[in-house]
């Protein structure tokens, strides 16, 4: 691809694109959230603007205390804690989704901004690329 030879320093602020990861699926039932997480961790090395929105069953990805030994799959939840140190700009959680699941911000394994879907509507429209996981 033509972009391959551009390194991050060469990209000006105007070249930055806004990427939003839309996490709407529960962990472990399918590979999606883990797949999304792996893309985020790689994309963080590029100089782009990355946000993550957890909505619907995606909010379960952030539940504290996941212990996967009993089902013999990798626990990837701890990686969500380091996203901010990877330069991810915003971690949003949809308020309604959280409430419908009987969860509070203190149930989540990292600090997030709890937002309403109304606030998010405009934000979504401002994104260049939305990746669903």
């Amino acid at each position, binding site marked *: 691809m033509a972009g391959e030879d551009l390194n991050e320093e060469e990209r000006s602020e105007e070249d930055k694109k806004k990427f939003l990861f839309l996490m709407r699926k529960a962990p472990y039932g399918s590979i*999606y959230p883990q797949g999304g997480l792996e893309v985020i961790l790689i994309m963080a090395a590029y100089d782009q603007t990355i946000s993550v929105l957890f*909505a619907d069953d995606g909010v379960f990805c952030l539940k504290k205390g996941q212990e996967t030994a009993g089902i013999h799959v990798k626990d990837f939840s701890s990686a969500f804690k380091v996203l901010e140190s990877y330069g991810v700009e915003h971690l949003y959680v949809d308020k309604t989704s959280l409430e419908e699941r009987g969860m509070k911000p203190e149930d989540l394994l990292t600090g997030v901004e709890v937002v309403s*879907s109304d606030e998010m*509507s405009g934000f*979504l*429209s401002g*994104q260049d690329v*939305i990746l*669903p996981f």
Partner: protein
Amino acid sequence: MLFTVNKSPLTSDNLKTCLRFAKKGNSVLLYEDGVYGAIPGTKVESVVKEALKSIEVFALKEDLKARGFGEVIDGVKLVDYAGFVGLVEEHNVCPWL
């Protein structure tokens, strides 16, 4: 913004949660099993009719035909794949899988 919805709203909450985020002037494209949301007389018809007051709803003709349907709820617009491409030309896409 174009939301693309591919799950049957008769068994999945996808369409409903998508509509919570779709604001006035946004569009929703129903495709794959999502097209069942476009047919009249189902238990989710009222949800789609309500949505039509503020947003545009499209249904992919090829997927509707494949599933044996033609008629859609008043106000839902039919598009073929070329129309789907046209919608993506006009809007950024939010795939609501």
